[in-house]
């Protein structure tokens, strides 16, 4: 019988159709919808940057700090890849180490964001000070929220790893988390480029 732990009833083993794993496919489809969600928020930011420009507030953004933050998030994606490679090779301990590193880097990134937000509010750029402020904080804030959820998820995966849930034969939970984390990272690269660099 092919009834899996997740309740996926496929006793006829027809899940081989197209050779796609259903959990991974589900995550890709969900991420597609998330791309559209961030697209909506991003289109608001870009539209207002053109129609209601705020050069004074734009100049307050600190490229250096956020650039370092970006590097931290990129590194965290790297640690996720290393972690996934570890469990594919059957090394649970190394998986745990790299998941822990990802969490630390994620928390560092969020701290950097919080600091950036704080210093900007001190300089007068707030959610309600201008359309620019509204769209800036909403866009980056929702991204931060997604990072936060990712950190919670990473902790859950780490817990699972410590309890022996994953092995070289059972990696899908790690892989699917990895997909989500990489997505969050890619969104940030787009956001960083469009908000800070251009």
């Amino acid at each position: 019988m092919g009834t899996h732990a997740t309740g996926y009833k496929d006793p006829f083993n027809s899940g081989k159709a197209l050779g796609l794993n259903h959990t991974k496919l589900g995550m890709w489809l969900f991420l597609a919808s998330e791309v559209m969600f961030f697209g909506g928020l991003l289109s608001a930011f870009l539209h207002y940057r053109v129609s209601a420009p705020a050069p004074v507030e734009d100049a307050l953004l600190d490229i250096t700090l956020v650039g370092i933050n970006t590097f931290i998030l990129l590194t965290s994606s790297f640690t996720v890849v290393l972690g996934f490679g570890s469990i594919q090779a059957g090394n649970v301990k190394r998986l745990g180490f790299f998941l822990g590193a990802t969490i630390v880097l994620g928390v560092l990134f969020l701290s950097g964001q919080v600091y950036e937000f704080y210093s900007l509010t001190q300089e007068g750029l707030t959610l309600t000070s201008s359309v620019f402020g509204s769209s800036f904080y909403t866009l980056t804030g929702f991204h931060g929220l997604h990072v936060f959820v990712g950190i919670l998820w990473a902790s859950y995966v780490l817990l699972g790893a410590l309890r022996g849930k994953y092995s070289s034969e059972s990696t899908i939970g790690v892989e699917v988390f990895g997909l989500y984390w990489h997505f969050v990272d890619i969104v940030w690269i787009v956001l960083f480029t469009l908000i800070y660099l251009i």
Partner: protein
Amino acid sequence: MSVQAEAMGQKPTWRKYLSWNTDHKVIGVQYIVTTFLFFVIGGALAMVIRAELAQPGSDIVNGVEYNRLLTNHGSVMIFLWIIPIMAGFANYVLPLMIGAQDMAFPNLNALSFWLIPPAGIIMMTSFFVGAAESGWTTYVPLSLTAPFGQTLWAVSVLLLGMSSIIGAVNFVTTTLTMRTKGMGFWDMPLFVWSMLATSLMILIATPMLTAGLVLIAMDRVVGTLFFVVQAGGDPIFWQNIFWFYSHPAVYIMILPAMGIISEVIPVFSRKPIFGYKAIAISSMAISILGLLVWAHHMFTSGMNPALRVPYMITSMIIAVPTGIKIFSWLATMWDGKLELKTPMLFAIGFLAMFLIGGLTGIFLAAIPIDLHVHDTYFVVAHLHYVLFGGSVSAVYAGLYYWFPKITGRKYNEPLGKAHFWMNFIGANLTYLPLFLAGLLGMPRRVADYSPEFATANMLATIGAIILGASTLPFLYNAIVSWARGPKAGDNPWRALTLEWTTTSPPPENNFDSPPVLTHGPYDYGDPIVQLENQTS
């Protein structure tokens, strides 16, 4: 009830429908019953609207109350009735049609359903705190200054959007990975194709509405300035982000309906469907094109006049795959051995009324016409012909068609026919005069109107009374037949899709052993297939 009794396919206890149950058949029924309740609520709101509009003068409700009625009528019908009931049908029928034992993500499936009752309750309670009053289109600035109920409305629709998106992830994954052995893409029933096309639109378009509603909610609750004109906010930006979702939304509402029609017509014509591949590809084409035409709702908004033209052209192009489907259905019926049972009557009614709705849609796509009839009753008539004459007809066709499979009982056929005629006459009497009112110049969303529109409105109100009353034979039929109708057997319609090869209702695991495909879903008239089907 004992496990054995359930396994034998006997009627399950009602208790399971009130709980978190991961069986797609239970979830399907939960969806159908819940959404029908909201249909009745939305219909009640419509009855008050039509009572108000029976005569000129704002006699029953004042302007603000009227705005709340129409806003919630539209919102309930769209977000709490049509969109989710299509998901409900898909939930029950899709896994059976592809020979699977459940959906790919059963727990997510339950979550999709259970988001709906709280969302519905939130929208209903908004009436007590000052209901949403900006139209279902929520245009700013009215939606920013409206009372607290508007925020509740936004929260409700956000939850419903999440339900829809999660459902779409489930439907696509199930369709792509759980088809039974031997069922390639070109062997899938057309209802499955229609849900695939619909789900892709949901995944791409609905999150835009999510983003837009977040912006509105933040403006209202936190004081952001997205749509505050004095700060540089842009009302037209709201229109763009709203219609980016809401135009595909109408295809989300009609494609599954067309899928149901594609199932019903071959069965009751005893003929293979004409143009199977053309219909499947047309569904995908409508899905893609539908994502590109949203600004045809904004022709009078002050948008760049030159930019209107490509939107007009693409909107008209959608008529091509749509027309292909209509001709294919007609060709299926041509020279068929028609059995005019209730599902078929509603399918034929769909063809007649959707045709009127669709053709008037092409009129509206033409910029010069739209400039005159935008925001008049011409649009109201058009949308009700496609949504009520189209989608609701198909829903009824599906309800009657799959009633025996879901309940194990036959509904009462004469009552079903009576329902159909009351529905058909009522609908046309209600909506046909509204075209005239619109062409004469009656604007939308007004409680009071000039006397020259009075005749059309009186006729429409009479039609609405017949339409409202028509729900009664249906409800009586559904409830009494479910309780003590005659047993239906596995395949009362002698249909060829996989759900009819198992018991009515199906056992918990749908099939005792993997279904073996020996024929296509529409091979009616094939003598070998006829022999196989004799023993149902």
